């Protein structure tokens, strides 16, 4: 399998694609029998330092419903200057610019190593990046101060030509005008009133009778872009009032200028308002309305978001923009209210939700979903930075980020390094000095005839593009071959699910290959529009004759993550136990299909190497917070799931099955089993669950540390031992987004629970004595251990009745 592993690795490195199966069963029937669908994890913007974008436009198939991009898999007739589309077999002439094409003079897109290629599209204007801060002011003084500082700091991280805007909210929502010269000015909205986008724009003075962009016909991107182009013209008008601008409205020539100057009142290039905004942020005060005893502050998050979305809709539709929402508590009034302002009414828990006792849940969720959809349509993403000890309503608001590709960051306070550094990391730059973010992505999937696409799971919304390659069978967000991903980072990964539609009686010729092309258009952070095209092909295999081959082409890591995504996706809408049962059944069926066993003899059960880890992944997945809500608040569950469905394979796997490293005097650090047996007194453990980074000092180590041996010169090595996991953790902390919660604990420490809850409870209070004390730490749990799980699995897999 080494070959397959290399192949997989190579594919991932080159194309950012991990398929569950690297050989595809050649018929629908066989494909269904494989249990795990043909699917892939695709990282559209996988960083490719070695892949310079080409400066021309892609050549596309001329068939109207195909439009596939010329790729290395196409057959080319160099003499006739004709190429055949490998998806629809349409023969297309090369465009005139390809006149010089020949076998020795091929364009990049025809070279096999360019199965992934990026084009820079020159046509159309480039749009600015937009950052709209939506800030909750119902915060503790300390928190607010920290947040203000973070925001002020962030101004220095933004590209100078990026546009910024500021909305603050508490009981009221204030949209701050940034262009005012004399005194600071803001537009205020009542926090309890649900306003339509049109109303908001009217109230902000953004719609003038004859201004471009009638409702229902939002100005095309170029309009917004034009506003930039006309920036020079518009700026002088900044000082003019709206009504003055009215005069210009009659002059079409100035139309754009007007649009932009309207926009400029609330969104301004950073370099222009740097000082203003810094001052403004500096003067930001806590919400001045008194909060009576026994009440929560009134927080109009819903309206604030609505205003933010409305503002962007009216000014920069179809332009990359980030709404960054900073909240310190749940929305307590108006539309999108999550909990009332009475402190005696606690915010909903999973228990309440299961009992259907969460009054505001449905309404709020619906409200935020509507907002998220509107936002997604316009290509604006929404980030949520929720820092509070209690829940902040992420459950209801998660869709804002999930559907628009925004981030969710959850912390205890804005005054923590977790938030500060995470926030800073949002503005990380890549090797080119560009932000690791892209906007307005539209990903299209094209498949060869035998394959259809069922859906995608990730931070995307459907664009409802029904094409010939769209399957009727939906998995995840389906029914389309195009998805919008409003915000993309190099690690954003979607799970894409396919269906083999080739009928059993229509065998594919030997050596036939199925192909999938991913065409991702997006706005690069340097404002260029780009198109990245990834074309991959896999061989068809007859499942009956080549089942071994297929089995060995199984990518169990990818499959685990893909199945997990399906599970999480289901968990969003279904009851937890149902999802677990579904997962179990899939696992059992897979084991039945590929396991080697004698009927009804569990002990005879064996799995090939390519599947050997899969059950273990499933075991941890079942225990993961993605599917288990016990001990998690609804917000936490939402938060975990949010990140699970967007991270790449490696991170996803870490989430499913945390990594455990052991440090000891016995040797170099080594990964150890995520098992209670790994918890030993003389070890330091470093566990990375993606969300937490736990350093656990074994009992002995802890005692030594307490005794201060590390301070003594003669125990330098102990000091080094203590330092080693810290260094490693630091490394992870440096790169991970969002920054994980960093926990430094020891045997018996209260925070050791983070570790204990993750490890396989191979030793519990039930079997403690059977295992012997020196071989690990018992976990006080009734959860089944991996061993028990496997035993059951084997039993079920081999039973004839299954």
């Amino acid at each position, binding site marked *: 399998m080494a070959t397959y592993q290399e192949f997989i690795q190579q594919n991932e490195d080159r194309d950012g694609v991990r398929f569950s199966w690297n050989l595809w069963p050649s018929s629908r029937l066989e494909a269904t029998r494989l249990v795990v669908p043909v699917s892939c994890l695709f990282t559209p913007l996988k960083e490719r330092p070695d892949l310079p974008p080409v400066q021309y436009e892609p050549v596309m198939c001329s068939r109207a419903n195909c439009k596939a991009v010329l790729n290395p898999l196409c057959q080319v007739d160099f003499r006739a200057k004709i190429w055949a589309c490998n998806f629809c077999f349409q023969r297309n002439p090369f465009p005139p610019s390809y006149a010089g094409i020949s076998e020795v003079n091929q364009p990049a897109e025809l070279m096999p190593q360019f199965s992934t290629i990026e084009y820079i599209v020159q046509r159309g204007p480039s749009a600015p990046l937009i950052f709209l801060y939506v800030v909750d002011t119902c915060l503790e003084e300390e928190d607010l101060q920290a947040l203000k500082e973070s925001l002020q700091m962030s101004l220095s991280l933004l590209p100078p030509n990026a546009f910024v805007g500021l909305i603050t909210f508490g009981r*009221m929502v*204030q949209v701050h*005008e940034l262009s*005012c010269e*004399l*005194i*600071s*000015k*803001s*537009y*205020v*909205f*009542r926090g309890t*009133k649900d*306003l339509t986008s049109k*109303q908001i724009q*009217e*109230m*902000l*003075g953004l719609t003038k009778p004859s201004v471009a962009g009638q409702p229902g016909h939002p100005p095309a991107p170029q309009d917004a872009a034009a506003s930039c182009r006309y920036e020079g013209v518009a700026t002088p008008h900044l000082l*003019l*009032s*709206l*009504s*003055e601008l*009215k*005069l210009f409205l009659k002059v079409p020539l100035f139309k754009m200028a007007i649009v932009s100057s309207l926009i400029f009142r609330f969104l301004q290039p950073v370099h222009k308002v740097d000082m203003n905004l810094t001052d403004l942020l500096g*003067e930001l005060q806590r919400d*001045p*309305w*008194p909060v009576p005893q026994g009440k929560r502050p009134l927080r109009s998050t819903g309206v604030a978001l609505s205003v933010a979305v409305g503002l962007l809709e009216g000014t920069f539709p179809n332009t990359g923009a980030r709404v960054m929402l900073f909240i310190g508590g749940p929305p307590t009034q108006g539309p999108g209210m999550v909990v009332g302002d009475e402190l005696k009414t606690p915010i909903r828990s999973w228990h309440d939700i299961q009992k259907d006792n969460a009054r505001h849940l449905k309404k709020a969720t619906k409200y935020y979903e509507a907002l998220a959809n509107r936002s997604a349509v316009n290509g604006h993403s929404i980030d949520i930075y929720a820092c509070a000890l209690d829940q902040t309503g992420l459950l209801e608001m998660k869709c804002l980020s999930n559907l628009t590709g925004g981030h969710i960051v959850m912390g205890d306070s804005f005054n923590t390094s977790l938030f500060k550094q995470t926030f800073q990391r949002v503005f990380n730059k890549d090797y080119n000095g560009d932000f690791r973010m892209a906007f307005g992505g539209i990903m299209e999937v094209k498949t060869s005839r035998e394959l259809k696409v069922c859906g995608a799971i990730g931070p995307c919304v459907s664009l409802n593009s029904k094409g010939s390659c769209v399957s009727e069978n939906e998995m995840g967000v389906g029914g389309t071959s195009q998805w919008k991903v409003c915000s993309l980072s190099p690690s954003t990964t979607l799970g894409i699910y396919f269906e083999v539609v080739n009928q059993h009686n229509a065998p594919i010729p030997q050596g036939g290959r199925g192909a999938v092309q991913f065409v991702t258009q997006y706005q690069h952070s340097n404002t260029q529009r780009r198109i990245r095209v990834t074309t991959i092909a896999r061989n068809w295999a007859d499942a009956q004759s080549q089942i071994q081959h297929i089995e060995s082409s199984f990518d169990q890591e990818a499959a685990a993550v893909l199945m997990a995504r399906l599970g999480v996706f289901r968990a969003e809408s279904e009851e937890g136990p149902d999802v677990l049962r579904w997962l179990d059944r899939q696992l059992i069926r897979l084991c039945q299909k590929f396991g080697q066993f004698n009927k009804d003899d569990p002990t005879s059960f064996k799995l090939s190497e390519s599947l050997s880890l899969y059950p273990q992944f499933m075991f941890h997945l079942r225990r993961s917070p993605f599917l288990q809500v016990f001990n998690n608040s609804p917000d936490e569950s939402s938060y975990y799931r949010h990140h699970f469905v967007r991270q790449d394979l490696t991170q996803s796997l870490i989430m499913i099955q945390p990594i455990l490293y052991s440090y000891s005097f016995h040797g170099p650090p080594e990964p150890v089993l995520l098992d209670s047996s790994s918890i030993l007194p003389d070890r330091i453990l470093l566990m990375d669950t993606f969300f937490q980074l736990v350093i656990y000092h074994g009992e002995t180590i802890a005692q030594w540390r307490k005794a201060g041996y590390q301070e003594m010169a003669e125990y330098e090595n102990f000091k080094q031992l203590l330092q080693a996991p810290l260094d490693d953790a630091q490394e992870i902390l440096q790169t991970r987004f969002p920054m994980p919660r960093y926990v430094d604990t020891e045997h018996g420490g209260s925070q050791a629970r983070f570790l204990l809850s993750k490890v396989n409870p191979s030793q519990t209070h039930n079997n403690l004595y059977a295992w012997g004390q020196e071989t690990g730490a018992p976990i006080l749990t009734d959860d089944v251990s991996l061993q028990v799980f496997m035993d059951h699995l084997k039993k079920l897999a081999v039973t004839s009745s299954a």
Partner: protein
Amino acid sequence: MNVNQHTPMASPYGQPQPGYGQPAFAPLDTGYPPPYAPYNGPVSTYQTGEQPPQGHGRAPPTSGPPAPQAYNQYGGRHQSDVQNGPPPMTQAPARPVVSQSYNQERVNLSGPPSSYPQHYGSPPAMSHVTSQMSGMQINSGLPNTAGPGYAPPHSSKPPVSNSFSAAPPATYTQALPPALSAPTQAPPTASQQYYGGPPPSSQPPFNSSLPPTSQQPFTSPAPPPPSNQPSFAPPPSYSGPPPAQAPSPSMSQPQQSFHPTQPAFSSAPPGSFPPRAPPPTSSQYPPPPTSTPSGQYPGPLPPQQQPPFSSGPFPPRPQMPPTSMCQSNHLPPEPQGPLGPPGPLQQMPPPQHVMPGGYAPQQNGAFGQVRGPQPGFAGPYPAQPNYGAMGPAPGPAPSTQKRLDPDAIPSPIQVIEDDKAKSTEPFSTGVRGQAPPLVTTDFHVKDQGNASPRFIRCTAYNIPCTADMAKQSQVPLAAVIKPLATLPADETPPYLVDHGEGGPIRCNRCKAYMCPYMQFIEGGRRFQCGFCSCVTEVPPHYFQHLDHTGKRVDFYDRPELSLGSYEFLATVDYCKNNKIPQPPAFIFLIDVSYNAVKSGMVGIVCQELKALLDRMPRENPDLDSTVRVGFVTYNKVLHFYNVKSSLAQPQMLVVSDVSEMFVPLLDGFLVNVGESRQVIESLLDHIPEMFANTRETETVFGPVIQAGLEALKAADCAGKLFVFHTSLPIAEAPGKLKNREDKKLIGTDKEKSLFQPQVSFYNTLAKECVAQGCCVDLFLFPNQYVDVATLAVVPVSTGGSVYKYTYFQAQSDQERFLNDLRRDVQKPIGFDAVMRVRTSTGIRATDFFGSFFMSNTTDVELAGLDCDKAVTVEFKHDDKLSEETGALVQCAVLYTSCGGQRRLRVHNMAVNCCSQLSDLYRNCETDTIINFLSKYAFRGILNNPTKAVRDTLVNQCAQILACYRKNCASPSSAGQLILPECMKLLPVYLNCVLKSDVLLPAADVSLDDRAYLRQLISGMDVSETHVFFYPRLLPLMKLESGSLPVAVRASEERLSKGGVYLLETGLHLFLWVGANAQQELLLNIFGTSSFGQIDTTMTSLPVLDNPFSQRLRDMIDSFRAQRSRYMKLMLVKQEDRSELIFRHFLMEDKNASGGASYVDFLCHMHKEIRQLLS
């Protein structure tokens, strides 16, 4: 005064005329009930007896005064009458006769009044005198005019003077006594006395004068009039005294008698009177003859002025009759002050003569004649002829008959001056049912148990005991209450009483507050309520022993036991939500739309506010005001400002969601001026700058008030909003309005809808405002229709004010606006007020007029109540009242002071009750009645066609007067117009009300103006309505330091081409410059001697270093200081286009929109009365 009209016409004319004259007098005299009765008597007699002669007399006068203009209505007849005027002279003889008869009658009248005298005591005398005076004036006025013309009368004057000396003293004493004594009996005596002494003298004068006059008349028309007048006058006014004197000049006679009396009473009167009267008269008269040329104008004018004044004084002297004579008389006696003016006047005289002829006739004849003509020419004429037969009259008589001599009809000026002359001593309120001096009189008040007239004025101080009587008389029973009125510096503001934690002591049943009418019984352990008679225990802490008279020992230590007005400190029980209120807040909401900025309003407001911040109302002048302030600007959207002291710069918060208004911030919006001064000043500097280039023309209005209201709600306090607004709110928002100004509706049944608010939104809003104690003051700067009727709903319902500056231009209107604003911000004000009027059993407050809101039928709720707001309360009987106990009224106003203290201000008022209608008519106050009627009518137009409202008014007044005529006046010819002394000005004032822009708009009066006036008047007190309806017109030819020139009647005829006049309405101030004004005068005033160089656009007079200019400017300043609104000075040059506006305020003249002249209206009234009587 009875005016004989139609019937009298022919014969009546003669009669009527006399009637008029008489009526005037009678009324005056009667003003004090007693006189009335007597007068009536005489009048009637006069009419009958004299009629013929009168007729003649009148006829002539009328004709004399070419007054025809005024009489236009009357048509040619009048004119002819006027011409007749001169002839009247001949009539004179007849008059004597009349007068005689009068005497008798009068005597009778005086008899009944006997009771009065008592009341009046010595002071009463004064009042009587004044009343008489006034009556006299009227008469005199008439005579005077005539007199002037008569210049010759001088000769007569002497006699007059004689009569004065003799008669006066006698009259007074006599008069009083007679009044007291049985009418009949007394009268005779009185009359005898009066006449006895005076009469003879007077008569002689008359005779002499008359003859002379007549003779003179012959020479000049003027003389005749006098004769006529006399005849008329005598009957009416003289009824009592005059009769003897004045058979003909009765008018003058009475005056004479009065004069004497006055002098007798106090030196002051004589002094004052003499000066005024004399000068004019003297000057006039003397000059007249000579200066005849001076022009009719001057002539008339002087006469007018003089007459009034002089008339006051004159009256004493028989002058009147011999008007001219009188003048002369006056002159001799006291050419003094008045003389100054006389100068010009003197010149005038000549014209007067001419005029006089006209006027006199008018006066005398006018009444009679007018009526006559109306009824039927034939009739009147014939009658006249008869009279005429007497003398040369026949020819002229007819003309005279038609016209009433404006000088012969009751003159407001005369009445006012008489009252002034009479009121020389402080008015003490201790006597129940005592009518206070007129609002035009400057007097000092001593609170001795009843509220000062500055707080409460009643329409009647002696009210009928039964509902039937009240209904019969139709005299409205109402009180105009101005609870927080500002008192002059020399009067003590109400004391603050603290009854401790239990709160004010109140009656258990009716909840009336402790007051002087509570009777302590059982040794002081209990008290009996004066209102409901319920007996209540005295709380131990309030117990006090009684002295031998049953008074509490601490009577004089406790304001609530000894005073009519005082304040209680309210306890927490009297507070909203049982919470001590927060100090109030002022919120300034400034329109910053294009028009507002362009007109300069925004800049001016902002600039001024900076200064005003230091002058917020405060209770303790030494401390900073506790009033917090907030600022909002708006156009289509609202901008709130955060001016928290900790901010370096103010912050603007824009609220565009006007559909549901809210306050975007709490902390930092309402701030303490001291703490946030820097930020506020910065804001006020910035506002004009920020909106300097705005192009936004649309505005909202409803949300603006909502914003202020919400802010006050959020801050949990009461307060006041100052809204500076420019245009019709057409932007999409609650309370959005349409332009509905449709001139076509005017005069139709739908006209009323124009006065109703266009949408109900503002009514609802007003209710909410009141609930929160949010008072709204609206400053409007419209360039076009803004629908004041709708916009004013909230201000009016919340006790706020509306100010309107149409076509506001910074340069010319700034001063007015700023002064209004300053005053408005600084004036004492109470918030969240509730007013309750309690009355003794038997009557009940049934209706309220003013700026307030009522959620039930008894509580007047005022979000804000300032020192300028008056509430008119109407009372109705629900049971019988008793004459012994009288009727009590207690007005309690619970309010939050500007310092946040909850207080109760209590005003008590006791009035007499009567079972005789004559008592009622003797104790009425016409100014207050007019106040009530106007408010009643102006509210009526909301629901009724304007015409119907006008008719109702006329009808009610006719009934009032008819009732008097029927029940109180002595029998007389039906053709005679007899007016009660107290109400003799009712017709002229009523005519002013009818002619007001609200009820009878001129073509150029916008709907907004009418709506504006309508609401303005609803909150006016008596003095404001008085000057508003009958503007004050002061001749400026000669100014004395220390005293104002005597006003002249508001008629164009009184204007002299050579003069300069100041006209004040309380809202407007005009300086009218005659085309031939003396150069010196112009030089003194304007610094230029050329009429042509006077710049009519100037809004203030140049500051010149001469005493005249100084005095004039001081005068103007003092006028402005008197009024609650700053009056912009408008310069009007004679025959300039702007004169039209000015003429609009000459209320005695016919106006362009169809309003009747005084004379015409009087005739019309008479007709109405006659119809009622028949």
